[in-house]
């Protein structure tokens, strides 16, 4: 027999018991929505963070004195460049600038116009902006967060920085960074290397730190050993360690949330069980009829399981669509703050639509298992209805 009649019957039963299913459907949708919204937000941030991290240098070397990092002599660069496996060495100029009226910090980044073309990181930051014009005017590019602060104080076209030597430096604002760069560039101010040195008070033969690029992963361990041996007053930050650190941090938050969510899932199961446990007279009679006309317990069991699975699946699909819209179209209001709590400036992070199958599978496992587990006993109870009842 074609499956069509079975499907018709299935939808008829769904329609008949809509009262019973409606509450469960709404509750399940809510559960899926919360779970998926959380996971999608986390996963999108993770994705953005890691694609940004990928473009970072493989090693960063900082000079330390008494445990505090101090400016690093650029003379070291030649020495590092000679290490086998190091493809490129670059000085980095950046630092925090205290903006007093708001008691916040901007991150000042000095860029060398020639460097800018060779650094993928800067390239993504300034993608689509006119660098030539920026160099000619010796102005600055600012992140969305910085722009909001400066706009508030009516610095629409320029801002006057105070350098450590008490001089005042007026820098014209040339534009804002694209919002895709917000995860790293929200509080960033990009200026020429020269300007950055003056404002941050970094000497000409020094840089904030030195970046090394080692494309071959197999050579990184030896490069690292050589860096350690080269100077004793350094701190070496490897990108791979940063990645693992971020990964752990990110996962810790997610796992913590999921463990707390267990309590919700348990009550979800109890509600489902209570809701489906009672059998209406009409439901009993339906099953009794089917049994009398030759359906086996197994066939009734699968019919009833399918009926519940359809509810579960419908709720999952709706929950998915809703959470996708909430996260990527509405940009996850409220939820975003949970993830962004540690930022200095209020981050207006743009959540880029990004979906991984694994996230869906994880949420599906976490949702379908308790759902189906909770309906097993009610379904069985329905299926073993005495067919004799049909005779009454």
């Amino acid at each position, binding site marked *: 027999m074609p499956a069509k009649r079975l499907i018709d019957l299935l939808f008829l039963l769904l329609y008949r018991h809509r009262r019973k299913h409606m509450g469960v459907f709404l509750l399940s949708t809510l559960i899926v929505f919360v779970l998926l919204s959380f996971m999608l937000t986390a996963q999108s941030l993770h994705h953005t963070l890691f694609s940004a991290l990928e473009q970072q240098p493989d090693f960063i070397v900082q000079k330390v004195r008494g445990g505090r990092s101090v400016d690093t002599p650029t003379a070291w660069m030649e020495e590092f460049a000679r290490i086998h496996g190091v493809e490129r060495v670059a000085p980095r100029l950046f630092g925090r600038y205290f903006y007093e009226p708001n008691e916040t910090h901007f991150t000042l980044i000095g860029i060398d116009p020639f460097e800018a073309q060779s650094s993928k990181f800067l390239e993504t930051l300034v993608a689509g902006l006119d660098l030539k014009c920026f160099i000619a005017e010796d102005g600055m590019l600012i992140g969305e967060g910085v722009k909001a602060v400066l706009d508030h104080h009516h610095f629409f076209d320029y801002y006057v920085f105070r350098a450590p030597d008490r001089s005042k430096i007026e820098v014209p604002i040339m534009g804002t960074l694209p919002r895709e760069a917000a995860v790293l560039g929200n509080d960033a101010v990009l200026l020429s290397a020269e300007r950055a040195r003056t404002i941050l008070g970094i000497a000409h033969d020094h840089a904030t730190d030195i970046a090394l690029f080692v494309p071959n992963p197999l050579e990184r361990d030896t490069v690292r050993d050589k860096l350690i041996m080269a100077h004793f007053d350094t701190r070496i930050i490897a990108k791979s360690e940063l990645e693992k650190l971020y990964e*752990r941090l990110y996962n810790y938050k*997610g796992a913590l949330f999921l463990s707390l969510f267990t309590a919700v899932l348990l009550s979800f199961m109890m509600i489902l069980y209570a809701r489906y446990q009672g059998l209406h007279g009409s439901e009993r009679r339906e099953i009794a009829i089917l049994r009398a006309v030759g359906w086996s317990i197994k066939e009734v069991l699968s019919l009833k399981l399918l009926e519940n699975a359809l509810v579960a699946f419908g709720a999952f699909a709706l929950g998915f669509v809703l959470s996708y819209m909430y996260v990527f179209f509405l940009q996850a209001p409220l939820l975003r703050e949970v993830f962004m709590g540690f930022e200095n400036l209020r981050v207006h992070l743009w959540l880029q639509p990004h979906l991984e199958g694994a996230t869906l599978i994880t949420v599906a496992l976490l949702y379908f298992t308790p759902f189906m587990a909770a309906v097993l006993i009610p379904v069985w109870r329905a299926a073993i209805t005495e067919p004799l009842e049909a005779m009454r």
Partner: protein
Amino acid sequence: MIFLSNAVIVFLLVEALLLSLLLLALYHVIPIIRHWDFADTSPRQYALEKRSYLAQLIIFFTLAFKIALLPYFAYMIDGLSLMVPGAMCAAGVLGANDYGAFLLGLKVAILFGVGLWIILNRRDLQASDYPYTRLKYLLFLALFALIAFESALDWLYLSSIATTTPVSCCSSIYGASTLGSPIPFGLSKEELLILFYLLYALCLVAALYSIGWISLFANAALIYIGYYAVVYFFGLYIYELPTHQCPFCMLQREYGYVGYAIWGTLLLGGFFGIASALFAPLHGSTTRALYRLSALCNTLFVLICSTYVLRYYFLNGVWL
């Protein structure tokens, strides 16, 4: 560190839930084992028959999720390699402590038991007098003990993965060692391949003519030899690197998750082949279906593996 990742939490939660369901099934199974007598017409027997349906439903549902959980376990372990220093894929994470490798073996063994149970249950329900009820619930008791043990090990294993101690990566675990060839019986790669295809042909013949004992032997051997053939021969073509030997990296996205298909078809083909031999004394349509499934899975497995080799040859004009 149990908060390693979302996947770990979800995995452990789902596993705990499944274990509690099995416990519930156990509660219904024990009176059935003790008092089952189909010839009896007492109300107690009728009640047991109904309870048996509940027990089966719970067990079937749980075991079905259990099957889905093995690839998820592999995925989760693979994801952890991002956090465990030194690990490039699941191989390193599995080697992070003493439980890993044993646990993986146990999981595969349990799935074989699960498959047997599902087939036995089917046979039992199709007969007119539930002939295997006691047998299938005894098998369930054994499975339950194994699964409880497995869940405990899962917990131990995952909670003792350190994120600070470096582990070895797959290239040092499976890589060319100085202590001679890792391929069993001292076979060369060519001999391994010939044996591999011969065994496959033997499996097909056994399935075609429904010869139980050959099927049992050939499929068991194909799993064993197939494992080595994939790691030390076909894997090279999947990774397109003459030195990359690892059973786990192929589970990753870079290789299109093909590892799931390869190991899945190998294990399924072997399972159906062995199960068909075990169920051969019972005859009936189940056995024929099992032979057919076995042949299908084995063929898929061999096709996937061979395609990688041929594709590489056509694109590059050389063998690795």
